[in-house]
């Protein structure tokens, strides 16, 4: 595997324990850099084992493709993923999401990131991004995509969550991300499919900066609208099931 996973292994420090599932696409160097490698099935189980390693005084990293809520895991937790969908969900669930652009950035970013943190190794060209895990919930095509990404920040986040719940009832798979983390093109994998932007007055600027060049964008500005107006505008874009 490429230099990103090798750099991640170096940044974590030696010795450390790697806890993975049966498959760890793109993580070969990370696993090979570990002093011990353990395979365990569920992500919650893996994170619990890693917490025990830290309890024993050593570093551990957990390879995941989904994470529980940050409040439910060891606060010192460090997870690694190649899944942009996992990263988006982690950001919504209270994790710090670290997505380095190059290997040299990993150590300083990890040093600065509050825990629990997810290190995303999906933006580098030498890391394969696995296909999203199949969801048990039926997902209906909406426009040209099947995923709505809601973007908000600050007080708008609560509204974003409520909107997510409404959209889920219409069969739309929703990724919701904090506006502040989408500040550069390498964060684009955090959003996917058909992008539904729900943000403040600078939504248009975000689009004009070219962060979403290949996807249709529906911008619904928050400014000056009541919540009822906004919900109505968003739901008007999404046909009822």
């Amino acid at each position: 595997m490429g230099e990103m996973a090798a750099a991640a292994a170096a940044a974590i420090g030696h010795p450390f324990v790697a806890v993975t599932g049966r498959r760890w696409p793109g993580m070969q160097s990370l696993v090979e850099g570990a002093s011990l490698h353990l395979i365990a099935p569920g992500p919650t189980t893996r994170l619990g084992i890693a917490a025990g390693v830290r309890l024993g005084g050593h570093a551990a990293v957990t390879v995941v493709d989904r994470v529980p809520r940050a409040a439910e895991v060891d606060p010192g937790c460090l997870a690694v993923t190649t899944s942009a969908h996992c990263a988006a969900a982690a950001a919504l669930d209270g994790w710090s999401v670290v997505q380095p652009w190059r290997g040299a950035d990993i150590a300083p970013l990890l040093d600065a990131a509050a825990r629990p943190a997810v290190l995303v190794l999906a933006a580098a060209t030498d890391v394969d991004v696995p296909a999203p895990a199949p969801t048990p919930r039926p997902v209906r095509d909406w426009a040209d995509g099947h995923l709505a990404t809601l973007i908000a920040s600050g007080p708008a986040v609560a509204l974003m969550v409520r909107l997510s719940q409404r959209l889920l009832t219409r069969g739309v798979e929703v990724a919701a991300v904090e506006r502040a983390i989408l500040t550069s093109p390498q964060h684009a994998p955090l959003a996917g499919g058909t992008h539904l932007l729900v943000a403040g007055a600078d939504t248009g600027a975000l689009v004009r900066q070219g962060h979403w060049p290949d996807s249709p964008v529906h911008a619904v500005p928050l400014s000056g609208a009541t919540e009822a107006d906004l919900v109505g505008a968003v739901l008007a874009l999404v046909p009822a099931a």
Partner: protein
Amino acid sequence: MATEAALGGDALALALGAALASRLDGSVWRSWCLLGEDAVDDGRLWEVATAAREARADMLTVLGAGTAAAALWHACGWTVHTAPAGDPAWLLGALDHAVAAGPAVVLATADG
């Protein structure tokens, strides 16, 4: 050090992680996991037990209550010892056997 968890799977996962940390330290200390009778109802306990067997976590020993799940521990590849909870000498003997070959579980029985 000591810690606790609400569910059996969480407790054994922590203990397994600590046992792996012990291996990094040269296996000079042991990780113990004390499980109540209801702990075996947590399915993740068996995920972790299987992972511990595959990791050859020799520095991990479980002391559990009741023998109802002895067959499951066996099925997960663990060495199982039983001892009456009311007989300290027998119990300590079982624990001595358990630490000789891990991962192992000592199941304390109410009778005897």
